[in-house]
């Protein structure tokens, strides 16, 4: 089964991968995003993901359809975790199967990049220091640090 979905429980890459099996395909590429123990100089203890699910699922499906259209790949899927995650856990998974490896790699890269830019998903980092903060929100809000790279791309 291809498609975009959220999960409140740990992602299982083997099961996700199995759904992309296709006898016409000679290549499979996947990307896994993991929870890292540091970000911008701060030690991260755990993460919390939150999403505006109704819109994110629609937009996620659009991204997957775009990948099929642009790269001519056979099957695509993406799953994103929500809720509390510990360091090392799998936060996002993207998989693509295609007749050849080149389009599989390119489609996989396209999907993860678009997911990070476009989907209404937010990440709160809890630091070892006891502080916490919404990534891309708190520093922007303080004014001087409002780097243009943190603004939403206005695509539509």
């Amino acid at each position: 089964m291809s498609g975009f979905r959220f999960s409140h429980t740990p992602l299982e890459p083997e099961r996700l991968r199995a759904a992309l099996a296709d006898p016409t395909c000679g290549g499979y590429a996947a990307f896994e995003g993991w929870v890292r123990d540091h970000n911008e100089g701060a030690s991260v203890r755990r993460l919390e993901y939150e999403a505006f699910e109704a819109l994110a699922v629609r937009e996620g499906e659009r991204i997957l359809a775009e990948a099929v259209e642009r790269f001519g790949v056979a099957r695509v899927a993406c799953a994103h975790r929500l809720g509390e995650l510990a360091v090392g856990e799998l936060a996002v998974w993207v998989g693509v199967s295609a007749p050849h490896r080149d389009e599989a790699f390119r489609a996989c890269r396209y999907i993860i990049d678009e997911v990070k830019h476009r989907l209404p998903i937010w990440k709160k980092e809890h630091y070892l220091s006891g502080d916490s903060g919404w990534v891309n929100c708190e520093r922007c809000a303080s004014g001087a640090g409002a780097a243009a790279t943190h603004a939403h791309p206005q695509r539509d």
Partner: protein
Amino acid sequence: MSAAPVPGPAVAPLYGLLLAGGRSTRMGRDKAALAYDGRPQLERAMALLQPHVVRAFVSVRAEQAAEPLRARFAQIADIREDIGPVAGLLAAQQRHPDVAWLVLACDLPLLDAATLAQLVRARAPGRAATAYRSSHDGLPEPLCAIYEPHSHAALAAAVAAGRHCPRKFLQSADTQLLDEPEPRALDNINTPQEYAAVNDAGAIPGRHITVQYYALLREQAGRREEALATAARTPRELYAELARRYPFTLAPEMLRVAINNEFRDWSTPLAEGDAVVFIPPVAGG
């Protein structure tokens, strides 16, 4: 956003006075009973007023006291006749001389909760009155204003001298003036034509919108969702209204907007029943 001033011991309690003693001559029927969004505007105005005051009264002429809509609320009857709205305030000040009066005309159908909340937050108890400056002519708006107890002597003297206009009183008094947050919030509706235009324009607060909050905005609003009645015509106006109520730190340029689960432009007209989400900078993956 500035924090609400902390009233010191010398600050008089705030009472509310809803002016409903007019003769509705131009409208040709009782303005207090005119329905906006299916609700008499007197009832709507009382609901806006009550959260801000210790006690709320309807100001009436003596012969209106038994009229069913007005009879539902505590009343203060005018003592003098034919001097206009100032009669209601004078009677209220005589009944309760030690309180400040938040005076509100009942015929302001575009008035929204945020505009009233901002007036109360900006109250300057050391001055005679706190009022909005009209967005039309720059003059004080006397019928959505706070009158401190010590304004009474000067007001009574002005009326005794034949000066009945409350706007002129505020111009001559020590009045704290504020800019109107919503340009049309204090437009009053006096004629059947104006009434029809306002209802046709769909501009009345009472367009029901649900707002869902996520991430940083959820924490700052202290809620996940709310249903509200608003005069905001676009998401841009709605965000400005909400930003006066909650300590939002994100400027609108940092956000995107979704209406009914689709990304939309900030100037998209809002419709009855829309579900709006303001989307903070995202960080998936």
